[in-house]
């Protein structure tokens, strides 16, 4: 079963444990400036929204890369950046419609979510279940269940 990250912004409290977990996984540092997942705060709307790469099937970052430094991990479905091949040209950062691949000045390479090889640290660190790693074919299952539960199938008993 292929899995994908699933984000439920309603559950996010903005604690940034996910950002620290990501930075730790990839840089052995808690400095969230290095995180590949970002939580956005829409203050006046009282909303926090975690956001990262959704691993497009037709990945424009991959198509745009002139050095073929972005390749598919066939097991996880993640598009991963090959550091030795990446020349830091940043064309992928222009191609990505969502902004989820970004240049890292200190390494001279781009970085993006690679699903941590199949065990995403952000999902593990999230204390509220706002970020989960679930069956890629059924990311809507929980929401379906919620609405299913509201379906009044036997009004006579009320």
């Amino acid at each position, binding site marked *: 079963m292929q899995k994908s990250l699933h984000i439920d912004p309603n559950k996010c409290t903005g*604690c*940034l444990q996910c950002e620290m977990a990501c*930075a730790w996984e990839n840089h052995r540092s808690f*400095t969230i400036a290095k995180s590949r997942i970002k939580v956005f705060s829409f*203050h006046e709307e009282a909303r926090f929204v975690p956001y990262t790469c959704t691993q497009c099937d037709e990945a424009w970052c991959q198509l745009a890369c002139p050095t073929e430094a972005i390749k598919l991990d066939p097991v996880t479905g993640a598009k991963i950046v090959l550091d030795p091949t990446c020349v830091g040209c940043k064309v992928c950062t222009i191609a990505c419609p969502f902004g989820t691949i970004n240049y890292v000045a200190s390494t001279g390479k781009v970085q993006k979510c690679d699903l941590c090889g199949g065990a995403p640290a952000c999902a593990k660190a999230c204390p*509220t279940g706002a970020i989960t790693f679930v069956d890629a074919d059924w990311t809507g299952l929980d929401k379906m269940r919620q609405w299913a539960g509201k379906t009044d199938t036997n009004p006579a008993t009320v």
Partner: protein
Amino acid sequence: MAWTKKVLRVNLTAGTCVAEPLNAEWAQDYLGQRGLATKYLCAEVDPKVDPLAEANKLIFVTGPLTGTMAATGGRYSVVTKGPLTGAIACSNSGGYFGAELKFAGWDMVILEGRSPKPVYLLINDGKAELVDATHLWGKTTWHTEETIKKAHQDPQIRVASIGRAGEAGVLYAAIVNDLHRAAGRSGVGAVMGSKNLKAVAVRGTLTDAYQVAHPEAFFTAVDAGKAVLAANGVTGVGLPTYGTQVLMNIINELGALPSYNHREGQFEGANAIGGEAMHEKRPTDGKPNLVKNGACFGCTIACGRISRMDPNHFSVKDKPQYHGASGGVEYEAAWALGAANGVSDLEALTYANFLCNEDGFDPISFGATVGAAMELYDLGILTEAEVGLKLTWGSAEALVKLAEWTAVGEGFGKLIGLGSKRLCAKYGRPELSMTVKGQEFPAYDGRGLQGMGLQYATSNRGACHVRGYMVSPEVLGIPVKMEPQAIEGKPAMLKAFQDLTAVVDSAGICLFTTFAWGLQDIQPQIQAACEGDWSEERLLLVGERIWNLEREFNLGAGLSKKDDTLPPRLLTEPLKTGPQKGAVCHLDKMLPEYYEVRGWSADGVPTPATRTRLSL
């Protein structure tokens, strides 16, 4: 090592920013944050200094767990000599600012002198500079934060700033970071204003500034700690659902919710302003006050309230800038803005709280001072002509107006901004000021809870609930249940709470974890993060050392045993209603024993033996 081992020293008079190594020996003796900054302050500042003079210093400080995955590991403190109390002031805040300072590579920023013109301090990793803030003077914290981010084209900058209250010399002005988190008490914002320092803005991107000493052990300890918080009824359910406002009805029913300037120990409007009420749909627009809960950096509890006001409420009817969501009332704010002066209009409280955040002033001291003013008005000592409005008990209109005036130091707000001690003294009724060492009580009656009474009298920063939270044993039964009116064992329990709290405040984590965590949960996290051996015994000794050093600063400042007291109302006027009816605070029976368990003389001075034991 969990310290960056770097201190940024900023001389505002000369306009210089210099990096210096952290005194690592002191870090071993005082851990970090509250303790470490206290050591620096005591070493560098004459305790007799005028708090608003150039010679006072203002220290922003993080702890070893700040900026780590330890739950709630995002705290920072501001330490200085406080203008409200004349005692040491130490105010603790969450939000995201503290961790960012650590990511930029700094354990501590020491601000000294006074800038000839308004400036803000801009820190970009290792680079620090003072930037002209003339255009920000006279502006709110909300405006300041937004303007600084825009000016540097960096929305990821974190800002801690003062609003107009800090500029206007409100003696309980706060420093506000991330729009609605605050180093709230004791007037640290007034000291910042006196230095012409508008803001500290930080962006931190370093990956090698600090490291936890033993990563594997650290994650084991941190994960165990998070599991304890999640499984605990208070931190796992009560706080995320109701925030600290979970306490409003509990404390009221116990008869320890002071109201009407402590004339009463219960408030008939408690239910209308408590945590449950924030969830209820308003009859006016069908929407609840509370929109959702929010977390500070790294916090897996998420007690923060995010509220949206009824846009048709009289206080904001034509002010769309307050129609969006923002920081809602916590328990202490709801009590002070509400019960302390009899106001039971949750929307008015929320608006006043917004103003406290927007212009940076402490809702506890503000609300309690309004309560004192209302009593003066009730007694006919203050008149409508003098105040500029009717100051009747429970008037939401008066509360709102006074908040607006105090925020900018206008009209009668100028007097309210000096706190209730100075207000009541001015009108010849000093005994009506519900303060200790000049700082207003928070939301627990020292008659209803004897241990809290003793805590208020002995707290190093004046009346305060977050220095030794005796509510835990006296109400919640943590770690053991003690009867509210009991006296036996309270001094020793209070000492243990005060020492443990000093450790928590010095580690970089939030005190609210201790609803669930004991030292046995905290120690492994510190041990794994920090180099050296940090046993529970050593940590408690560090806590005790911090408490005693603060005490010595205060003694040096001229405070003494005579200041370890309570207003006569708490000592002689019995509570009139509720389960604690008839109670006064038996401070005289507890204080001598407290001094004894502290190892202090009968005059409240640490004995030579105590000083030696604590290596002071």
